């Protein structure tokens, strides 16, 4: 299975609303967060003067609350522990990529300095 299946398989059991919420929290929000951060950082490094920086920084602020990828990582370990007694599990290569992705996302979100981010945007857009 892939990680995305854990959200999608909820639709097979008519739990559509739950499926949408889980999909948003573990896939859509982290992906959007990654893209937003990359675009913002790149723009700030290149000193791009763009009106789009402010909406992006606002989006980043909203996404930080709803990104739950690190909670999902713990859930992966818990479900592995639950299943270990019943079946033999083999980890795919995506598992290690996922762990690395989660840790990097976690650290990069922690490193964002809100005050400095907005001060830089202010300097670039006025």
């Amino acid at each position, binding site marked *: 299975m892939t990680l995305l299946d*854990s959200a*999608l398989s909820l639709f097979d*059991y008519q739990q559509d609303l*739950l499926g949408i919420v*889980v999909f948003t*929290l*573990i896939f859509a929000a982290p992906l959007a967060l990654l893209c937003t951060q990359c675009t913002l950082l790149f723009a700030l490094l290149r000193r791009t003067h763009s009106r789009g920086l402010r909406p992006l920084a606002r989006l980043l602020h909203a996404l930080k609350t709803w990104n739950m990828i690190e909670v999902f990582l713990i*859930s992966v370990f*818990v479900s592995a522990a639950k299943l270990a*007694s019943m079946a033999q599990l083999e980890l795919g290569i995506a598992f290690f990529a996922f762990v690395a992705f989660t840790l990097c996302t976690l650290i990069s979100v922690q490193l964002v300095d809100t005050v400095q981010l907005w001060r830089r945007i202010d300097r670039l857009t006025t």
Partner: protein
Amino acid sequence: MKTASSEGLVACVRCTRAWPAPEQHCLLCGKALHPRKPHSLQATWAFLITAVVCYFPANFLPIMHTTRLGQVQDNTILGGVLVLWEYGAYPTALVIFVASVIIPVAKILALVWLSWSAAHSEEVPADRHGLLFNTVELVGSWSMVDVFVVALLVALVRFSGILTIAPGGAALAFCGMVIFTMLAARAFDPRLLWDKAT
């Protein structure tokens, strides 16, 4: 004591920049400026009550249905913890117990206490209450562990005829409870505590 409001300043809750009070919107990020969030306590109570309403189905309905060789077994959240404990998976049982039983209840109680003291207390120890609020915000999303575990198990366990796991009604209710307590924490304005600081 010199404070922002005594100096006629309002801080933006998004980008932290302080502006002179007549300003209606943050000139930097555009968020509406309020000295204190409007109707903060009312919104916090509304979200908290919704969370409490979700709490009951979340704990009494089964969170997943396990079908083993044609026999259906319903598992509640607390039942799942007990099963893990019996199997001797103590660390896992502890993680689930803390994340899905202790944290949600503690979060709701803490927010009830904070909202109550922001409205009715004469004097509030603002530093300790502020710390409590920060902790509530920090642990906000960690209760989702159980919902994600159900989603993962549903996707993983599909040995047709032998063992299948289907999500139960409690999963959505639990998810709702976690999200509504997060919204309640967002609606609460910790600056209300400063107004009553000793």
